[in-house]
């Protein structure tokens, strides 16, 4: 084996397989975590019968999916029907070889200097499978779910992309490793780009068809939306693709706004260099920090689902086009102006201060002693 072969084929493959297995375990576990957390937030217990606290549900669910009957509707378009669940799965899995999980070089599968662009390009192809599956099922609910999904994903792709521009302007690179290093030596992008982070998170919810934007599978209107006619493993593939896409977006969120695998402000703390100096254990520590942050955002997904009711379709479009996009554009303009007006990192500090003030003020309003409800006879 030549060193080149090892460097460009064997090691990336091994790293990707390890990452893939971890991702699959997290996705399978999310099923249980989500049901359980939703239950607890809705004043019930959730699945607790299989194994300790229902933990074996993680294994029981896949077994159920495999054993169930695989039904193909007689009037379905066979080829497209089979392609439907597979198409969103491929980009959802491919993206995992572009995300850096820890300090390079060990924990980066492939170091692409336009990695962010590639990830965005790949994730946005996931909608094809959903449209195709919805159309091929020959069912009006499926078709409407597919169409809604298309409209929604295309609409929210715009603020999704625009919210990243501010980060790119600050960091000056499409390279996720560079973006993470930049944050480690300055401050988490969450603070200077608080509005962008908010838009990114909301668009990310809409991209993944999660509540409150789960119109493509709105069960009270469309039965189950685009996967109404799918059963057994085909349905499981849709689920797998959805949860994988959620995980990808959480990874992006963490890399772009929360400093990835580092835990440091302006170079103090666990930066990439410190972790690299600690050898393999430093790398593992970085990966653990990264996964912890990602899992936090996965839990926030569930938290959102438990809290917010579903939007109406026109409200969804209005929010996307009339609020998210102008806000993202304004954020780009303000960021650019501040960077130009105050060079040598002054703009960064000003934006961070504004972000910290916004977060602090929101928290104050949220936890202030409530004024008492005044009641008088009338």
């Amino acid at each position, binding site marked *: 084996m030549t060193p080149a072969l090892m460097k460009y084929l064997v090691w990336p493959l091994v790293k990707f397989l390890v990452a893939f297995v971890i991702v699959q375990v997290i996705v399978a576990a999310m099923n249980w975590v989500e049901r359980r957390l939703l239950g607890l937030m809705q004043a019930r217990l959730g699945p607790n019968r299989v194994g300790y606290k229902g933990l074996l549900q993680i294994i029981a669910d896949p077994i159920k999916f495999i054993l169930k009957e695989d039904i193909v509707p007689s009037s379905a378009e066979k080829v497209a029907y089979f392609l439907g669940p597979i198409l969103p799965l491929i980009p959802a899995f491919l993206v995992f070889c572009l995300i850096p999980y820890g300090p390079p070089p060990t924990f980066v599968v492939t170091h692409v200097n336009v990695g962010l662009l590639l990830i965005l390009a790949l994730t946005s192809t996931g909608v094809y499978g959903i449209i195709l599956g919805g159309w091929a099922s020959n069912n009006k609910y499926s078709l409407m779910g597919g169409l809604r999904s298309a409209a929604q994903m295309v609409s929210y792709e715009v603020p999704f992309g625009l919210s990243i521009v501010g980060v790119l302007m600050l960091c000056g690179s499409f390279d996720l490793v560079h973006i993470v290093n930049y944050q480690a030596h300055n401050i988490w992008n969450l603070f200077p780009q608080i509005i962008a982070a908010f838009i990114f998170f909301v668009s990310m919810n809409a991209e993944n068809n999660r509540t409150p934007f789960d119109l493509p599978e709105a069960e009270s209107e469309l039965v189950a939306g685009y996967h109404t006619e799918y059963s057994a493993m085909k349905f499981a593939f849709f689920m797998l693709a959805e949860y994988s896409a959620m995980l990808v977006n959480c990874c992006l969120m963490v890399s772009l706004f929360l400093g990835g695998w580092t835990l440091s402000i302006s170079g103090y703390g666990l930066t990439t260099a410190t972790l690299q100096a600690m050898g393999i254990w430093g790398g593992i520590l970085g990966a653990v920090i990264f996964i912890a942050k990602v899992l936090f955002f996965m839990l926030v997904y569930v*938290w959102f689902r438990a809290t917010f009711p579903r939007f109406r379709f026109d409200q969804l479009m209005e929010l996307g086009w009339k609020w998210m996009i102008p806000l993202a554009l304004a954020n780009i303009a303000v960021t650019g102006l501040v960077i130009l007006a105050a060079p040598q990192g002054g703009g960064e500090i000003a934006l961070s201060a504004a972000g910290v003030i916004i977060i602090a003020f929101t928290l104050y309003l949220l936890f202030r002693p409530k004024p008492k409800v005044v*009641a008088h006879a*009338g």
Partner: protein
Amino acid sequence: MQVEYPKAKWTDKFLLLDMFEGLKTTLRELFKPKVTIRYPEERLEPANRFRGMFKFSYDRCIACKLCAVACPIDIIYIDVHDEQREVDGKMKKLKVLDRYDIDVKRCMFCALCEEACPTKPKSIWLTTKTYELATYDRNDLYFNMQQLEYWDDRPRFAGLPEAESEGRIEGGRKQIEGGTQ
């Protein structure tokens, strides 16, 4: 009464305070203790006036048939014959119960039979705090006099005969019989 809520300021609206308030509520709910009763392991004690399985007392019953008359759907079947018996040295004509059956599967648990019963204490009553009446065969829900009187805390766990012989039902029966009251 007129209730005045504090007005929402523009800062509250701009910072989406209502949404964060909602998130706060669900988070608080996450840590609250749940009131769910995990049924086979935990059991709820019914209220004192809960109408459950019938209990019948042969000794108290005077065979007046008032309960059968009171029953709105006529599911109480009573057969009686007269007998000459010596009570306190005198010959008396007594009514003797031959049959006292209740078709529980059709019962709606209105407890009118209990109300109609003239004996004190009642010779038919429903306040036994039992609710596990399900059976595998509907014929098991037709109870005769002995079955109505001689079940202990709970009605018998009527299992499928073959399942019972294989010992598959045993665990369930033990749980029910040993369950908390």
